[in-house]
C-alpha cells in the first residue's frame, strides 16, 4: 500500500543498484552508469584499471554465483530473493583489494558494495574501521556516504558521518557529510515516531538491533536543530553535489536539497498555511489550490502505478 520512494534517497537507490547483487540482468541504463563509474579517469593511482577491473570481476563472480544459486533453489530467475546467498565470500575478497590499495579511488565501488550488501558480516565492521583510519582524509570518501547512511545506519556509521562533517580536510566532504547527517537524523526521527505507534512497534524493532535502537532514541531526544543546520548548508555548500546522477535525473546540488528540506520544515507542517499551487489539470485547464478556500481540501499526491 505504502510506497517508500524517498525522493532524497533516489541517489541511494541508484547507487545501491550499482553495487547490488540482484540476480536479474541489470537495466541497460544502470549498466552504463556502472561502467562510467568504473572507467572514471584518475591520476592518483599507478594501477587504476587493475583495481577497477579486479573489483568488477569479484562482484560479477558473486552475481553469477548468486544467480545460479537462486535458479537452483527456485527453478527459475527470481528477482527479489538473492539476499539468501551469502555475501561474506565476496566481501572478504573486496576487503582484501581495499586494504591493499588504500590510496586508489577505484576501491570506492568495493567499499560501497560491502556497505550495501554485507551489513551483517564482519567485513562491514572492518570497512568502517578502514574508513575511519585510512580513508578519512580522502576526498573520495564523499562517494560512500550516501550508501553508508542508506536504510537504518548503525551507530558506527553515524559517528563516522558526524566526525567527517566537522573534521574532513575537504569542503565538499564536509558538506556531503553534513547533508548525510541531516538525512540520518530524519531517518531516526521517523523511526522513533513509528516505534511509538503500538501498531508498528514490533515491526520497527525487527529492523534494527537493540543497541542501534537505544542510539536512535537518545539521538532523537537530543533534538537535532534541523533549521540552522540546513540554513548553514544553504549558505555554505555552493555548487557541491550530493552524489552522482542516476536514473536519468539531473544531479541535485546540496544547496537545492537543503532549500527544499528547509521549505518543507517551515511551510509544510500541520498548523502552517498551505503553500498555493497553480497548475494545469489533466485536461490542460489552469487552476489554483487557493480557488478552493472556504472548503476542506483533501490533497492527494497520487499516481496510477
Amino acid at each position, binding site marked *: 500500500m505504502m*510506497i517508500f520512494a524517498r525522493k532524497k534517497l533516489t541517489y541511494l537507490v541508484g547507487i545501491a543498484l550499482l553495487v547490488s547483487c540482484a540476480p536479474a540482468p541489470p537495466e541497460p541504463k544502470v549498466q552504463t552508469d556502472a561502467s562510467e563509474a568504473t572507467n572514471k579517469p584518475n591520476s592518483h593511482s599507478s594501477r587504476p584499471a587493475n583495481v577497477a577491473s579486479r573489483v568488477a570481476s569479484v562482484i560479477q563472480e558473486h552475481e553469477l554465483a548468486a544467480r545460479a544459486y537462486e535458479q537452483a533453489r527456485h527453478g527459475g530467475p527470481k528477482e527479489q530473493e538473492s539476499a539468501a546467498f551469502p555475501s561474506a565470500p565476496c566481501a572478504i575478497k573486496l576487503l582484501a583489494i581495499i586494504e591493499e590499495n588504500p590510496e586508489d579511488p577505484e576501491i570506492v565501488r568495493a567499499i560501497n558494495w560491502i556497505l550495501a550488501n554485507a551489513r551483517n558480516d564482519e567485513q562491514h565492521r572492518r570497512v568502517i574501521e578502514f574508513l575511519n583510519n585510512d580513508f578519512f582524509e580522502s576526498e573520495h570518501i564523499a562517494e560512500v556516504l550516501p550508501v553508508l547512511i542508506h536504510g537504518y545506519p548503525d551507530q558506527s556509521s553515524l559517528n563516522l558521518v558526524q566526525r567527517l562533517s566537522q573534521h574532513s580536510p575537504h569542503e565538499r566532504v564536509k558538506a556531503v557529510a553534513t547533508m548525510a547527517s541531516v538525512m540520518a537524523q530524519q531517518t531516526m526521527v521517523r523511526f522513533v515516531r513509528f516505534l511509538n505507534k503500538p501498531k508498528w512497534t514490533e515491526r520497527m524493532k525487527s529492523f534494527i538491533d537493540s543497541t542501534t535502537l537505544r542510539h536512535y532514541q537518545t539521538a532523537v531526544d537530543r533534538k537535532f536543530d534541523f533549521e540552522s543546520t540546513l540554513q548553514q548548508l544553504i549558505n555554505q555548500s555552493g555548487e557541491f553535489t550530493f552524489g552522482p546522477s542516476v536514473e536519468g535525473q539531473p544531479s541535485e546540488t546540496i544547496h537545492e536539497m537543503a532549500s527544499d528540506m528547509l521549505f518543507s520544515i517551515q511551510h509544510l507542517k*500541520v498548523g502552517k*498555511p498551505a503553500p498555493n*499551487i497553480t497548475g494545469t489539470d489533466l485536461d490542460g485547464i489552469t*487552476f489554483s489550490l487557493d480557488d478552493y*478556500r472556504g*472548503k*476542506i481540501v483533501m490533497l492527494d499526491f*497520487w*499516481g496510477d502505478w
Partner: protein
Amino acid sequence: MYSHEQLLVQKLTDKPFVILGVNSDSNREEIRNIAKQKNLTWRSFWNGPEGKFGPISKRWNIEGWPTLYLIDSNGIIRHKQMGGDTEPLDRIITSLLAELGHVVDLSY
C-alpha cells in the same frame, strides 16, 4: 484508495469538501484516459512530464506515494500522512466538517 475516495465524494457531495489530486504520472494523455475509465471524478493538478520528479511534488517535498494532506477552510494544513490509511483521514475530515457545523458519519 480510489474506492475510499469515491465513497467520500459520494457521502460528502453536499458538504464543503473537495478532493484535489496532484497526479505524478508522466504521460498526461494516458492518465486522463485512466481517470475516465476508473471514474476518478475529482480534479487533479498534473505534475508534468518528469512524473514523480515534477515541480509540484518537488516543492512539497514528497517522499512517498500516496501522500495526503488535509487543509481546512482557512487554508491551514491540519493533517499530513504518507500512505493510504483511511482511519485518520475519516476521523479528521469528520472533525473539520464539525468545526463548520456539519455533522457527518463516515463509518462504513
